[in-house]
């Protein structure tokens, strides 16, 4: 799939906001609290209704919604305390249609391999965060939607994440990330949602 033209507006938060994104490009959403970053990401992921305007995805197979071709990592980590780290990744791999094996690479990529057999309940905030980020690697999908992905991550982990994001862009993937601190990706556009455009 090549490039995504997304034009949307409506919902009380912002209006007439529109942008488009090519493969290999990243869009960084900034803006004050309550500007609507999370809302926008949820709409892109198809988790929130689009009131006006539309989200179009050129290329990519037509009968799959953008949501089905995207990864969404939000404030909630979608982890089950009683499942082990390895089980968690394995499940999501199967559910999203790849094979359970080969989850190690994903854990490796986020430095969780040595925790593989630990129940999620024992993980610290940042470890949990890294685990939910591991889905990005575990199942390849062209679009990444990240809502404040660096929350609770230590410096090392942030660096690791940035590396992964660059790799993804390098393979022609797209990233839309809401964050308050600068990630320093190469070809990134920045979309600043201001409070001015309240509905």
């Amino acid at each position: 799939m090549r490039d995504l033209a997304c034009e949307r507006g409506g919902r009380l938060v912002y209006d007439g906001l529109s942008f488009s994104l090519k493969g290999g490009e990243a869009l960084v959403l900034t803006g004050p609290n309550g500007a609507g970053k999370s809302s926008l990401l949820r709409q892109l992921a198809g988790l929130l209704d689009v009131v006006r305007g539309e989200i179009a995805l050129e290329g990519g197979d037509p009968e799959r919604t953008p949501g089905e071709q995207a990864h969404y990592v939000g404030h909630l980590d979608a982890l089950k305390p009683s499942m082990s780290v390895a089980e968690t990744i394995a499940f999501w791999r199967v559910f999203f249609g790849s094979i359970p094996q080969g989850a190690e690479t994903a854990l490796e990529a986020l430095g969780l391999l040595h925790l593989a057999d630990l129940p999620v309940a024992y993980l610290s905030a940042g470890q949990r965060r890294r685990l939910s980020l591991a889905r990005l690697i575990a199942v390849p999908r062209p679009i990444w939607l990240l809502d404040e992905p660096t929350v609770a991550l230590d410096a090392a982990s942030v660096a690791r994440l940035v590396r992964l994001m660059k790799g993804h862009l390098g393979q022609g993937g797209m990233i839309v990330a809401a964050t308050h601190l600068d990630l320093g990706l190469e070809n990134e556009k920045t979309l600043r949602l201001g409070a001015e455009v309240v509905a």
Partner: protein
Amino acid sequence: MAAMNSLTALQRFHAYANPARFMALSARLVAPLWILSVLVIGAGLWFALFDSPPDYQQGETVRIMYVHVPSAWLAMFGYGVMAFASAVGLVFRHPLSDVCAKSAAPIGAGFTFLALLTGSLWGQPMWGTWWEWDARMTSVLILFFLYLGYIALWATIEEPVRAARAAAVLALVGAINIPIIRYSVVWWNTLHQPASVFRMDGPSIAPAMLLPLGLMGVGFTLLFITLLLVRMRAEVMRRRVRNLRLATAGAAAEG
């Protein structure tokens, strides 16, 4: 994204069917409706209390029928309105139909309650019991539960869009279930022969009774419609309030 486009088309359609027009129209209708319903009910009451004969076997208690039966009718009518509005709201995403469904519920519940109350006030002198697990009474009781559940759902989900759709689903599933429930209750009631063999087919109604019954029926229906309009207007205002508050929240997101 055909779906997306059709949806936006709907949205444009809404831009025309906006609440403002409803508010303008209903504002003109409410007052006359109040007067009309009061008049009709008043006339009905006159005939019901003064100008109709006592029943040959039920005596004066038959006068209860003039409130009981119309209430019972409206209990069912109310659910009909609710279900229909819900269907429209779910299919066409028409905002006002959601408002309509929500507003109809408490009124319908009120009349259902009345049917139950007056019914048992009728039952005590007639069969010497306040309550009988007669099939029809039981199904009305269950109808009352469906109303309560619907209202509770609206009351619990804060976000109107979500609440509307969820409640609509409930109303429709309920509408599908009502016949099943009704049938099962009748089947159950005839399986164990009920203690009292009383059937509520009602006495073959004499015309002298039919007039007040009819008047009360029409009057209650008018009242229902009037109340529905008022509640819908209140609901629209409530949503305006909510939007103003949200706008404040958004504006609060100062840079």
